[in-house]
């Protein structure tokens, strides 16, 4: 076991690949938060009055709230006056109108990250990309083609300008501005994000994708994503994230709202690889995110798939409100914590409609001194006749200094409901390692094979390109953890 442990350790300690900083001229407002800052952000975005009012209400509510302390994560208190709430790459005009106007340095950054931003380069591909750099969205590809089908895929700021009625109707309708501490903060200061609208009966012909990157120092990133699928619509949406390596912690508090009307389906996939901090736990992103989907219509379907390998601390519970009869909610998650990373993640499935079904598959991998907690709520209301839930929560431990924790909450108020919960905890066994080694497979490949096998049920839910990336990411994030 000793040697195998060393191999695992060596494997885990690989460096973060996306840790470079892009040198850009930015328009960053001074640190600190007050009503004037909220007004300034709204003014910079040239927002209509209803948006400013909404932000201010959120801000005033936020002042009355305190940060949640129930999660199984530990960090020093955050000084919200030390953060800058808006940073944008400076452009010569009011904002980039096309990709040609985007700072070439920024485009090179995205190239480095492997994001195909230029439309002509990705015409052969199937992904439309919106990229959010610090606080603003820098280019949405394929807009024209999607527009012909009535699909709106643009930055949130643009949606506020071009489709204020949709924003007004749906913003905050799933995650109210005062929902929780971080959601309230986001509602007050969010600067951009992505907006998707799929009209009735339209099946979005390509994967829509957003890439988030935090670049500037001492800034928080507060993006907001709103996806609306009208009756019978379908969309698959991908989200990826990276950040430079910095010694101080950076806050990322996003809100994502999904709305699925009758017979609509939304598939939302995340590969989160924010900078996790160094081996001693210095630096890294605090990823405090509120994601919630509302199956508002009958037979609607929302599924969340997430692969969380980055961030110093992750606090997120992508949830589904199963309001429509026969609606379906799914949550597939792989969360990996290595070194000093902490994750408290899971989901909430709220069954309201009749015959609603939910599936939860959570795979937690802990290595180094990583702490991984699954926290999930399955709530069946009185109205939810015939509701069914299946929950499976598996934890894999690499080494003996890490931890895995499971906090399942089940509240059932309807006697016809069926709720199943299964949980396992295992360790990569010395016997599994030896078996692979004896077949000539290196320790590194063996661990990656065993871990990928462990995550298979989740990976098969990811779109192909993402699944490959997720597998590689797991390999990289585990470097040094063979034990």
């Amino acid at each position, binding site marked *: *076991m*000793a*040697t*195998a442990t060393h191999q695992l350790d060596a494997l885990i300690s690989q460096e973060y690949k996306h840790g470079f900083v892009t040198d850009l001229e930015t328009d960053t407002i001074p640190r600190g938060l007050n009503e004037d800052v909220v007004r300034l952000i709204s003014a910079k975005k040239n927002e209509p009055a209803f948006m400013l009012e909404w932000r201010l209400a959120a801000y005033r509510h936020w002042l009355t709230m305190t940060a949640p302390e129930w999660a199984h994560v530990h960090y020093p208190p955050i000084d919200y006056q030390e953060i800058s709430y808006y940073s944008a790459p400076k452009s010569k005009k009011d904002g980039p109108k096309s990709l040609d106007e985007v700072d070439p340095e920024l485009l090179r950054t995205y190239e480095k990250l492997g994001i195909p931003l230029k439309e002509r380069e990705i015409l052969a591909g199937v992904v439309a990309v919106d990229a959010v750099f610090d606080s603003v969205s820098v280019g949405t590809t394929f807009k024209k083609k999607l527009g012909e089908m009535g699909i709106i895929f643009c930055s949130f700021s643009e949606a506020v300008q071009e489709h204020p009625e949709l924003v007004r109707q749906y913003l905050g309708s799933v995650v109210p501005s005062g929902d929780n501490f971080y959601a309230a903060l986001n509602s007050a200061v969010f600067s951009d994000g992505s907006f998707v609208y799929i009209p009735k009966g339209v099946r979005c012909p390509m994967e829509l994708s957003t890439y988030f990157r935090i670049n500037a120092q001492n800034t928080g990133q507060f993006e907001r994503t709103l996806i609306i699928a009208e009756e019978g619509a379908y969309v698959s949406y991908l989200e990826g994230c990276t950040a430079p390596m910095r010694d101080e912690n950076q806050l990322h508090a996003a809100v994502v709202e999904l709305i699925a009307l009758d017979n609509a389906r939304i598939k939302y996939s995340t590969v989160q690889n924010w900078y996790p901090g160094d081996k001693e736990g210095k630096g890294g992103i605090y990823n405090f995110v509120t994601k919630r989907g509302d199956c508002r219509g009958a037979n609607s379907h929302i599924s969340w798939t997430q692969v969380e390998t980055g961030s110093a601390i992750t606090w997120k519970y992508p949830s589904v409100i199963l309001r429509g009869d026969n609606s379906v909610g799914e949550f597939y998650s792989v969360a990996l914590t290595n070194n000093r990373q902490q994750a408290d993640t899971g989901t909430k499935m709220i069954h309201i409609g009749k015959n609603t079904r939910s599936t939860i598959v959570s795979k937690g991998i802990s290595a180094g001194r990583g702490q991984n907690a699954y926290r999930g709520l399955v709530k069946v209301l009185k109205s939810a006749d015939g509701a069914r839930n299946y929950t499976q929560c598996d934890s894999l431990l690499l080494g003996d200094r890490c931890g895995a924790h499971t906090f399942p909450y089940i509240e059932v108020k309807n006697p016809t409901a069926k709720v199943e919960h299964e949980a396992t905890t295992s360790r990569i*066994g*010395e*016997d*599994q390692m*030896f*078996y*692979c*080694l*004896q*077949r*000539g*497979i*290196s*320790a590194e*490949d063996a661990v990656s*094979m*065993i871990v*990928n*096998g*462990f*995550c*298979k*049920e989740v990976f098969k839910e990811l779109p192909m390109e993402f699944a490959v990336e997720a597998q590689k990411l797991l390999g990289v994030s585990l470097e040094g953890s063979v034990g």
Partner: protein
Amino acid sequence: MLKVKNLQAKIDGKEILRGVDLEVKAGEVHAIMGPNGSGKSTLAQVLAGRETYEVTGGTVEYDGNDLLELAPEERARAGLFLAFQYPVEIPGVSNVYLLKAALNAVRKHRGEPELDAMDFLALVKDRMKLVEISQEFLYRAVNEGFSGGEKKRNEILQMAVLEPRLAILDETDSGLDIDAMKIVANGVNSLRSPDRAIIMVTHYQRLLDYIVPDFVHVLSDGRIVKSGGRELALELEERGYSWLEGGSESAAQSGARAGGGSHV
């Protein structure tokens, strides 16, 4: 091919091998027999490089090189194969995936190009006939939910694909019914060749009816106490291991051995 001299090994401070001598040449099939706890499986595991055992003395030469210097994966790539007594389950990893990773690791070591998916599948399908395994078997997770017989057949399939120079079969007959044993034995027999050696570790002589060895060794209390030809196994069957153990101390020791011999 393999020269074991005065090999000693222990686990958790307990001595298991107390000076094993064994020489195996290419083309030969050797059977190592012995009572439970005599060190048979330990010998197999030590030769394969399992790190839970500590080698405390002796030498092992394999194709002229010091085997004990090599890491387990290096031994495997150099053609040493261990068919496990208890093959390990790896959930979510398909049999075919493991097999391909293993074969390509071995080929890379030999300086051969990796096989592409088509050639690989053709090879595997060909070898599957040896152990009478159906194709859906390939896409199941490694050993997960396999019956005892399927696990053992899977080990022999891996052997057939990896084409080792030296194969060590650890209790390959245990847990097999007679039909499964015949299939496994046929598989092994078809892999006998002039440049391949096989060491079979077994408690019962039954397997030797189907895979006929050139040499039989009896391991007792961590040493090879008797070697001979095929007929030695038959004699053992008739007279029992106590015939070689020297009755007086056997009762006291068998208790201690049972404790030391159960780690596989």
